[in-house]
């Protein structure tokens, strides 16, 4: 688990409380995250930047508002498209896939 982006210690919050690790897959790859954290946080901690490709222009998108409003971070989660990963808690065994338009496969 790549820990470089996780804040271990903070001047105001102190030592970050340990949380239970869970395993999930991102485009088939095994990734470890923390139980209950937003999927987007686990992906960012693992260095994943691109959550989806847009329908018309096939452009990459990722986290933008992080509060469930802009819907740019949507992905396919357990087969369901358009899941806002910034507000959806991570659960053991989740299957997270990059979303292309509304499909799990690049067009063409």
């Amino acid at each position: 688990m790549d820990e470089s982006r996780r804040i271990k210690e903070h001047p105001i919050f102190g030592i970050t409380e340990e949380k239970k690790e869970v395993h999930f897959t991102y485009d088939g790859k095994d990734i470890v995250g923390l139980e209950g954290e937003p999927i987007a946080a686990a992906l960012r901690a693992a260095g994943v930047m691109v959550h989806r490709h847009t329908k018309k222009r096939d452009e990459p998108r990722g986290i933008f508002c992080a509060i469930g409003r802009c819907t740019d971070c949507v992905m396919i989660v357990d087969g369901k498209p358009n899941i806002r990963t910034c507000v959806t808690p991570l659960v053991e065994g989740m299957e997270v896939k990059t979303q292309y338009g509304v499909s799990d496969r690049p067009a063409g």
Partner: protein
Amino acid sequence: MIISNDRLRDIGEFIPQPDDDILICRCEEITKGEIRRACHDGIFTMEEMRRYLRNGMGLCQGQTCSKLVKGIMARELKISPLDLEPATSRAPMRPIEMEIYARDGGNVG
């Protein structure tokens, strides 16, 4: 409100700008150029614009772009953004799956 709907007002020619290809509506992928051009097509209100180009009609329902669209339209129509009425806001205020909406039992429980 009335000024923006004055269809006889001359807003001049559409003049291409170098940043016309920049996206304004991130969800429906509508560009600045498309919005500007639409004004010259005779789209003078924010409500019409949404229907015409589908900007603000995507997943986020215009939460990110409506202020940007307003600014672009105002500049193109040569009016103050204050004179452009925001588009109608109607239920549902947030995207919701049809099946959940369909299951709505009304006042039960």
